[in-house]
């Protein structure tokens, strides 16, 4: 595991950059645990101070210190993405494995449901939920909802991997070695499926944080909690760009870009590492 990591760091520049960006953002987010202020309080400071030695990121029109505000935003957004990714991975792993392994009617029903989930547009449904639930739509509820809407595609991927693994000779060989099926799935098949779960988890984080940003920018989320999206929402709400408070927009944008680029590069380089054909090409042609 560590060998893989150090190899990737040394020889895959995309991975190294992605890792650096992501870790920087992560460290910044953990600073929020040491924050001297409560991020939900407003008008605690003089509003609209430009970034300076005392307030590194300046303050906004709501009288908040953008530095600490940003640390909370990073933490909440990453946490949101992480929660969604974890929950939807569990769903897609379980459904993919069951569907691929059981086959027959269970598979047909699950895949029919899957088809529906793949083709339902997520956004209007989420807006509808927000419309009905309003304040009951907490960050956790939203995470659960997004996870429920975001498992289908990867479940299909895992199912097709499972199907091909099930028909490979070594599965039968293990079977005739007396191994019980659960052991075969856990010991023989998961090593093939876990890398996919891992790399799709990164892609899913990008997707879910993106959804949160979109919803929050429109004000369709709990706007009292600082996240990437709500920071932009408030900046817009106060017409920060037109009022010349550029740092209120620029700083979140920079952090969002760093987070997304970091996650994206990590997922791309891991994907490449996982795909044996890509790996072969990196090695140079094969035989």
């Amino acid at each position, binding site marked *: 595991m560590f060998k893989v990591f150090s190899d990737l760091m040394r020889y895959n520049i995309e991975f190294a950059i992605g890792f650096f960006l992501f870790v920087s953002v992560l460290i910044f987010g953990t600073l929020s645990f040491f924050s001297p202020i409560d991020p939900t309080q407003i008008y605690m400071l003089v509003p609209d101070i430009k970034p300076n030695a005392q307030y590194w990121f300046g303050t906004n029109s709501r009288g908040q210190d953008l530095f600490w505000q940003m640390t909370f935003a990073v933490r909440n957004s990453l946490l949101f993405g992480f929660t969604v990714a974890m929950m939807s991975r569990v769903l897609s792993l379980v459904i993919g494995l069951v569907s691929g392994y059981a086959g027959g009617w269970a598979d047909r029903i699950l895949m029919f449901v899957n088809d529906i989930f793949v083709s339902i547009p997520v956004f209007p449904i989420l807006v509808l939920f927000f419309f009905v639930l309003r304040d009951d739509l907490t960050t956790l509820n939203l995470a659960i909802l997004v996870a429920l809407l975001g498992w289908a595609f990867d479940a299909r991927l895992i199912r097709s991997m499972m199907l091909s693994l099930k028909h*490979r*000779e070594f599965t*039968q*060989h293990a079977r*005739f*070695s007396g191994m*019980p099926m659960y052991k075969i799935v856990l010991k*023989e098949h998961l090593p093939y499926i876990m890398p996919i779960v891992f790399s799709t988890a990164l892609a899913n984080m990008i997707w879910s944080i993106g959804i949160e940003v979109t919803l929050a920018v429109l004000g369709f989320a709990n706007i009292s909690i600082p996240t990437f999206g709500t920071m932009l929402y408030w900046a817009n709400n106060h017409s920060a760009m037109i009022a010349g408070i550029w740092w209120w927009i620029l700083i979140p944008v920079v952090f969002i870009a760093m987070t997304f680029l970091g996650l994206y590069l990590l997922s791309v380089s891991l994907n490449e590492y996982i795909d044996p054909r890509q790996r072969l090409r990196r090695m140079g042609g094969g035989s």
Partner: protein
Amino acid sequence: MNKLLEVKNVVKKFNTGGLFSNKKLTAVNDVSFTLDKNKPEIFTIIGESGSGKTTLARMILGLETTTHGEILHEGKRVDGNANRSTRMNFMRSVQPVFQNPFEAFNPLKKIDQYLVSTTKELLQIEDDEEVKTIIDDNLQKVGLSHAEIMGRYPHELSGGQLQRTAIARALICNPSLLVADEPVSMVDASLKMSIVNLLQSLRDDFGVNVIYITHDLATAYYISDRIIIMQKGLVVEMGPARPILDDPKHPYSQLLKASVLSIADAGNGQLAPATDLIEIVNRNEGQIGKMRTYEDTRQVREYS
């Protein structure tokens, strides 16, 4: 006669169409034969691709259900979906060897686990020293040793070594039947015969019945006691191996033999296809006909 395996009028049909169509492909059509536990033999199934030989092997192993007919192992119906203890009992007696040795072992895992698992799960031996001894004994039988194999990954061994390891693993539970589906087709020429000879020694030295599935008439002649020749799911000729291969009676068997490339007259390309035989075979294709028994006990499918 102590019946080890009875294949009775087995038919296998596959659905080839989708949800709305009912197209069926008959992969195996009315095949019957019996193996005797007390008289170990190499029973060879010969056929080209699409002959149904692999499907037949999969049904014998319980990996595929039969559409009609039944397969009995020591009087009990072979059933892949039976409960675990029934299945384990079956596996103690019937073991497979697969075609591609590089596929039969998980490339991400050490080879050990297949050997260890077979010893522990099927023989129910827990003591690690004993497990090691048993594995080593069985590797010795195929000309390998514990030190050569254990702790290795599949890619570190040759196809021949892997295939012999697979056979050693199958031998651990002292099976009475080994089903080997094209065990040498993926093995290098210089290593091939070691596997073929090994199958022979399983019969002669360890009393194991072997179902050897192949498309290669020459190795079939070399080791088999009895053969069946299959064409598109149907058995066209079956009986004692050498008489049949020396003098095949069914046109399809004759065509197969005529198509085998001989090295006897190397350098003077004998490549003219047996067009007359091909014509007869094509004419008969799709007909069921009847099996006729000859005096040398062979059965040949004949058409009126």
